[in-house]
């Protein structure tokens, strides 16, 4: 950073010449870009995703995996934090130059890679060091062509990214919105054509938007954004957040009604693929809603959440399947008749609560991070018990429990072969979960959870029985997870220990974190975005081709979110304030709202702030 020295004067724009750029910063970002691109190339993503076209015929998902990074980094290289009271630099040609330089540097990395792959054989340890990679990177032309092409393409993209700075704020937003619109239309191809068959004209026969329609979508999205579509949405949201009392309730009710209606109608008009996808998203949404109570509200990092999912699934399976282990005493009924599933669900919830107590009690006094590892251990222990030959007489060990009947309610039947019915069932349970979470969040218990999350010692000093309160979080979370387990076993019709790996816990955690810890809407968005688009641990998403890379992306996403947006996509107001306490204080200090006197302690300052910003929740 060249000139980010604090100035006490009024913010002034400092303009500079086109080539007066921070070369060190460019070299660093460019080097990073080159490394990133080479890494992506070596993971096999470009070649592996080449089959899926985004825009027919020239842009495939594989090519996109290489081209988005220069664009993004070309933009970020010129990006600075705008600090209050600090002079910002004027945007101009220099940003374009910087972006282009970064892009070209990064492209150089790929160019060198093409030449290296073409001349040396390192396929022994590096599996993607293949002739196909050369072909792809040199666009089926000569290697020299590829060499030049990548510097040019990447440089151009970097310049385009940098040029975003030059555009006025509104246009910039419109361009970004338009690009996203094109990409989303392409990604959601199977979904959109499933909902409205007539939309097929948008797409080429072997998949991907056609050139013409890509342009049309781009222009339309841009026009909508420019005409203020996005602004209006933002205003509405701000208005909603500002509203209070009956007005807010009415809006909430409207929103819920509209959402419910959409959830009822969409499955009616879509085909089985989408219904299956939505049913899977729903199951993970149920799980995430439960974990949200544990992690998001009570601040307990439970890495073994899958244990409750497994307990739920196995309890239902044992109670309904005629094919459970042979050692069960005869008084354990097989509830495969109408209504049997509901009785099984009731027992399942009881069992999950019991499991929650048994697992929760020993861990609840531990330090937060010890607790995380111990719960992870419990998750594994539960899976190993279901898998073991020791309990094989009850749970069939590795062979799993099969022939689990569908959930028969007498008037209608929820079965795995009919994903729509599964989706409706999941939605009913999700509505119940949401209602429970929401009521709890605003109850005495919910406030106690948040107090514990913010500072356990203080909460204890305030007279909250932290042990009981945390145990309650565990138990409620466990009960909600058992919903998902019960649906899962009825849906799949068979249940195996391999469905309950540690990975499932981690995926649910990523959903909660990416969506926004402690925020119900956030969790729903997270489940939809991650499981719906990328896919769950064993469930394909809309981007089926991604299944090979989705864990890599989950990992990267988790890191990125924690570093840049720990409060998630749809943050919980209170939670994000906790996470950004320092920044809030800093901003407030810069605005002069906080007494600059040394004697003001941080705690007082944050109390001032909390008063100033107004807390929601609280008393009603």
């Amino acid at each position: 950073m060249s000139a980010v020295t604090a100035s006490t004067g009024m913010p002034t724009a400092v303009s500079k010449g086109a080539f007066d750029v921070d070369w060190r910063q460019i070299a660093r970002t460019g080097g990073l870009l080159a490394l990133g691109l080479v890494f992506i190339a070596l993971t096999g993503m470009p070649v592996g995703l080449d089959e899926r076209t985004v825009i027919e015929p020239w842009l495939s998902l594989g090519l996109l995996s290489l081209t988005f990074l220069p664009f993004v980094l070309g933009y970020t290289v010129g990006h600075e934090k705008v600090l209050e009271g600090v002079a910002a630099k004027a945007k101009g040609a220099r940003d374009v130059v910087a972006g282009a330089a970064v892009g070209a540097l990064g492209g150089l990395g790929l160019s060198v890679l093409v030449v290296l792959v073409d001349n040396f054989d390192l396929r022994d340890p590096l599996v993607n060091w293949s002739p196909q990679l050369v072909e792809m990177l040199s666009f089926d032309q000569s290697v020299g062509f590829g060499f030049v092409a990548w510097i040019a393409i990447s440089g151009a993209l970097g310049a385009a990214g940098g040029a975003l700075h030059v555009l006025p704020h509104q246009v910039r937003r419109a361009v970004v919105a338009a690009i996203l619109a094109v990409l989303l239309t392409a990604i959601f191809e199977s979904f959109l054509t499933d909902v409205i068959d007539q939309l097929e004209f948008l797409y080429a026969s072997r998949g991907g938007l056609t050139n013409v329609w890509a342009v049309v979508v781009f222009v339309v999205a841009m026009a909508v954004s420019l005409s203020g579509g996005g602004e209006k949405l933002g205003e509405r949201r701000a208005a909603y957040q500002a509203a209070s009392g009956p007005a807010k309730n009415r809006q909430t009710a409207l929103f819920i009604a509209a959402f419910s209606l959409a959830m009822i109608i969409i499955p009616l008009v879509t085909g089985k693929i989408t219904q299956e996808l939505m049913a899977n998203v729903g199951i993970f949404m149920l799980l995430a809603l439960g974990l949200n109570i544990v992690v998001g509200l009570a601040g307990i990092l439970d890495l073994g959440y899958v244990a409750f999912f497994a307990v739920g699934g196995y309890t239902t399976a044992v109670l309904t399947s005629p094919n459970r282990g042979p050692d069960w005493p005869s008084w354990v009924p097989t509830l495969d008749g109408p209504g049997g599933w509901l009785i099984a669900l009731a027992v399942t919830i009881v069992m999950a609560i019991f499991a929650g107590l048994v697992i929760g009690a020993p861990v609840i006094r531990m330090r937060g991070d010890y607790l995380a590892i111990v719960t992870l251990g419990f998750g594994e222990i539960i899976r190993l018990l279901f898998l073991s030959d020791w309990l094989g007489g009850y749970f069939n060990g590795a062979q799993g429990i099969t022939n689990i009947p569908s959930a028969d309610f007498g008037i209608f039947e929820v079965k795995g072969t009919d994903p729509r019915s599964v989706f409706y069932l999941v939605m009913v349970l999700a509505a119940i979960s949401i209602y429970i979470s929401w009521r709890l969040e605003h109850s005495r218990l919910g406030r106690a959870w948040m107090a514990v999350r913010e500072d356990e010692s203080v909460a204890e000093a305030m007279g909250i029985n932290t042990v009981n309160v945390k145990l309650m979080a565990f138990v409620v979370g466990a009960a909600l997870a058992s919903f998902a387990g019960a649906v899962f076993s009825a849906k799949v019709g068979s249940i195996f220990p391999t469905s309950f790996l540690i990975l499932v816990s981690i995926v649910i955690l990523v959903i909660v974190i990416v969506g926004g810890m402690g925020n119900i809407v956030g969790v729903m968005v997270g489940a939809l975005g991650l499981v719906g688009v990328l896919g769950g641990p064993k469930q394909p998403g809309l981007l089926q081709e991604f299944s090979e890379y989705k864990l890599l992306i989950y990992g990267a996403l988790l890191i990125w979110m924690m570093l840049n947006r720990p409060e998630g996509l749809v943050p919980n107001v209170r939670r994000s304030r906790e996470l950004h306490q320092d920044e809030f204080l800093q901003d407030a200090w810069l605005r002069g709202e906080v007494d600059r006197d040394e004697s003001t302690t941080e705690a007082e300052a944050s109390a001032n702030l909390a008063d100033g910003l107004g807390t929601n929740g609280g008393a009603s």
Partner: protein
Amino acid sequence: MTAAVRAKGAGKTNVDRFLTVLRVVMIGFIAISLVAFIAQQIAPENPFAEWRHGDEGATRLSWAQYRGLLVTGISQGAMYGLIALGYSMVYGVLGFINFAHGEVFMVSAFTGFIVSTKFDAAGWWEGAAFFPAIIITVALCVIVSTSTAVIMERVAYRRLRGSPRLIPLITSIGVSFFIQEAVRLVFGPGAKGYPSNPDWLEERLPWLGIEVKKLVVIIIAAIAMAGLWYFVERTKTGKAMRAVAEDKEIASLMGIDVDKTIVKTFAVGGAMAGVAGILWGILFRSVINTTGFLPGIKAFTAAVVGGVGNLGGAMAGGVSLGGAEALGPLMILEPWGIPGVSQLRDAVAFTVLILVLLVKPTGLFGERLSSEERA
């Protein structure tokens, strides 16, 4: 803090009663198992064994089989201990569990695989040439693992200093998965086999019946441990590390560069994991992208068992855990007539963790943490 409040508070809660029962049940279970095990060693036909095992009869082990179990447990435990050092040091200094530390170990084992196969192709992995080759391999492994640890700190954790303690933990879970998947995608799925060890490593010592490679693993681990102890307790850098672990603010007031010291802590932990990685390669001659995951978690368990922040404790914890894992299923579970006990080995390891935290939360050899981290 919590403990203090509880001590002052009146009476026991239901949770406390439950935990007391749990402790008694677990310890009682283990005690009965051990007695039953000894009994069936002496008299396999005793009533308890017949009751639990029926016609099949109880398992009786020979002395040689014991020795085999013990040696394998100790050599495995020595590796847990080496990895645990990294956890312990980072936890001591930064107060968070670096979940991705197991991946540093895996990266080292992978480096060892690549380098050793290259040496093998050149004919250097046998005879006299083995010694320079293995030294170069170890050096490369340590360099790669150290850099991995340092880069990890720089990219993912440095920006999170001072954030709530669960944030870096969650980040490290992401780092762990990212590295695992990156290795799988770049180097391909499936297990990678090391070349065959020279014959002398595979032989057994005539008087003890121990395989030479296991002895080598134990000895190298002990040397690395001693080196680390010297480094931390006797050098200036080590002193700085201990100071930073005790109190970062005061350390920086004393003129210690906290950032640099933290980087050094990561580097030293990474180097230890690097040594463990190549030892793993020699011992098991195979590596896969998930090699680091479970051993990593178990190494953390070892650190807790020995007492976090306590270097000797980490090593002792590792050896105890390795021993418990090797002997536990046969000595504790088998006397009850549980079939297929080896399947429950990981469950035993995690139960050890739970038991230690329930009975002696500060670990067998005591924690060494600063006051803020104990809160």
